[in-house]
């Protein structure tokens, strides 16, 4: 906190006394001007293609593009590296940061710096696009990141954070990278209103990133959906997970996530809506699971999770488990497959609902059996199992199934 106060004071002082000069770059000598500029100067890059990469910034500067300037890494090097606090980078186009199998080459790397703003830039065909290492208090906003790699191995992440703190990532669009947004050892990150689609691996991928918040993002058609691991106190609200198809593709994969909240999200048309393994005390409420292959796949290693007030509509399988153990609670959800009645008209069904079909278990054990879906034989098996559970977990049932779907937001 002290650090931050000092920073604001610094800005105030600089605004009053320093009156930073403004430089206009016409010819491609950006490197020289960056060297020549005083701290807190503004550099306006006026058009042109600048190829003398990598450029490095070692002082507080404002770098603004006008008339579409392009910084081109020529497929070999990194493009812009920021080593100092308080830098603004706006309206630039970064392209062709070099692919490397040794280094994490990035179009824009922010290294051990704080109070950086990266806004309204375009990133085209880079290895990594935005790379923050040991950065803090940064804002990455309204950037447009695209790449067109085909193989995961020669593709980097769209927005990559490693050992960062207090980062806001907002309104970006990422597509065609390896992971759209990647977090490792990040504290207190906020990811808002981004669109991450058509990435080769994960739309969002985070590990060891406690107390982060993900709201109103859209993750669509990514190679393996979204995977989040080894993290606690995560908040995921009002996100959209759609059309993540494939054998190892999940709307949302949770592995060792603890004490977290997943609310008001929509999972639509994924092979698996949520897959959860060894995740404890996760609150999953008021989400819509629509037309997924599997709504929720929950492994017995997941303890004390609560699923409540969710809508399960049009999924081929609502819930699937691996064994007879269940240590989570399903209570007060709406299931479109519920056929019970509500005599006292309190909106809650009088008969408990078992969302796990025997067939889901069979398919888990013998995948080729999937071809028997919707067969009368399988329906009969399911019915028998529901009456007298011998294979599916007897405790996995919703004792208060809702008669009407929970209203959307």
């Amino acid at each position: 906190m002290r650090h931050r106060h000092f920073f604001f004071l610094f800005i105030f002082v600089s605004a009053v006394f320093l009156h930073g000069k403004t430089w206009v770059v016409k010819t491609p000598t950006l490197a020289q001007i960056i060297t020549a500029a005083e701290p807190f100067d503004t550099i306006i890059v006026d058009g042109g293609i600048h190829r003398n990469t990598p450029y490095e910034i070692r002082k507080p500067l404002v770098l603004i593009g006008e008339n579409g300037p392009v910084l081109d890494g020529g497929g070999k090097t990194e493009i812009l590296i920021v080593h100092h606090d308080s830098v603004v980078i706006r309206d630039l186009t970064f392209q062709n940061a070099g692919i490397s199998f040794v280094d994490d080459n990035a179009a824009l790397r922010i290294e051990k710096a704080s109070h950086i703003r990266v806004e309204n830039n375009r990133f085209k065909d880079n290895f990594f696009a935005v790379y923050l290492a040991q950065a803090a208090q940064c804002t990455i906003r309204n950037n447009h990141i695209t790449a067109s790699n085909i193989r995961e191995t020669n593709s980097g992440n769209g927005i990559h954070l490693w050992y960062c703190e207090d980062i806001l990532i907002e309104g970006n669009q990422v597509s065609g990278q390896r992971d759209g947004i990647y977090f490792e050892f990040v504290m207190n990150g906020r990811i808002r209103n981004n669109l991450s689609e058509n990435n080769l691996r994960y739309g969002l991928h985070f590990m060891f990133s406690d107390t982060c918040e993900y709201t109103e993002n859209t993750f669509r058609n990514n190679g393996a959906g979204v995977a989040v691991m080894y993290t606690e106190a995560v908040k995921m609200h009002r996100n959209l997970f759609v059309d993540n198809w494939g054998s190892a593709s999940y709307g949302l994969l949770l592995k060792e996530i603890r004490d977290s909240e997943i609310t008001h999200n929509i999972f639509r048309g994924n092979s698996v809506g949520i897959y959860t393994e060894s995740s404890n005390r996760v609150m999953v409420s008021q989400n819509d699971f629509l037309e997924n292959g599997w709504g929720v796949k929950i492994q017995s290693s997941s303890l004390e999770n609560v699923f409540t007030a969710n809508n399960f509509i049009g999924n081929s399988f609502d819930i699937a488990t691996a064994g007879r153990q269940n240590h989570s609670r399903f209570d007060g959800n709406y299931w479109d497959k519920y056929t019970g009645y509500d005599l006292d008209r309190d909106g809650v069904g009088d008969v408990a609902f078992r969302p796990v079909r025997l067939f889901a278990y069979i398919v888990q054990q013998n995948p080729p059996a999937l071809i028997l879906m919707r067969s009368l034989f399988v329906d009969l098996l399911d019915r028998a199992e529901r009456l007298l559970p011998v294979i599916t977990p007897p405790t996995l049932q919703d004792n208060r199934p809702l008669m009407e779907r929970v209203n959307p937001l």
Partner: protein
Amino acid sequence: MRTIGKIIKYEVRDILRSKFVLFYFIFFLLLTEGLLRFGGGSTKTLASLSNVVLLVIPLMAIIFGAMYLYHSREFTELLLTQPVNRHQLFTGLYLGLAVPLGLSFGAGLGLPFLFHGFDDAGDVMLLLVMIGSGVFLTFIFTALAFWISVAYNERVKGLGISIVLWLFFAVIYDGLVLLVVAWFADYPLEKAVITFTLFNPLDLARILLLLQMDASALMGYTGAVFQRFFGSFWGISTAATALMVWTVMPFWMGMRKFTQKDF
């Protein structure tokens, strides 16, 4: 050809008089209309209809087919005293039953949708596949019924065999497939399972519908194999050929029995 036409004409009139086809048409019409009106959108309606199509059509076709042929036994014998080719007579009888059944099913299912419209474009394809496979099932199971009722003179026996045959295709066969899948769980069975489905017309029809309805579930690893096969030109032609074989084979067997039979 003219003889076949005449027989069909007579038979259609006879069936219409028995009101069964009309009832059959109204059943599908009311069911579809009711589901569309009270059950929510077209997607949900089609999902509910798929079960009905896969169960009711084969059952109705095989039982009504067998019953009809036993019922009109005397008329058939009467016609056989006339200078009528047996091939033509059998074809006429078969088409005279299968075509009205198929038509009334298709119309009963399709008309309410024309009136109500669709929720999304994928449903049009699903409806077409459903009507197509329903018509195929009608032809297949009518042919099976004709074969059985020509082969067995005893009415009760014939009807019993029809029901058992339906039960076999609808339930028992899938149970056997599941058993095989569980027994040989250690082996890659995707291709084998696809082959199994070719030997059961009900499974074939079901999978064609499945691919339209449960796309996301099927995109799992195994599903992708199925999807790739049945989604490819080669797979679709194989499935269509199998359904054709399933129509022609029982018909041909029945025809052979019919031409050789000593009435």
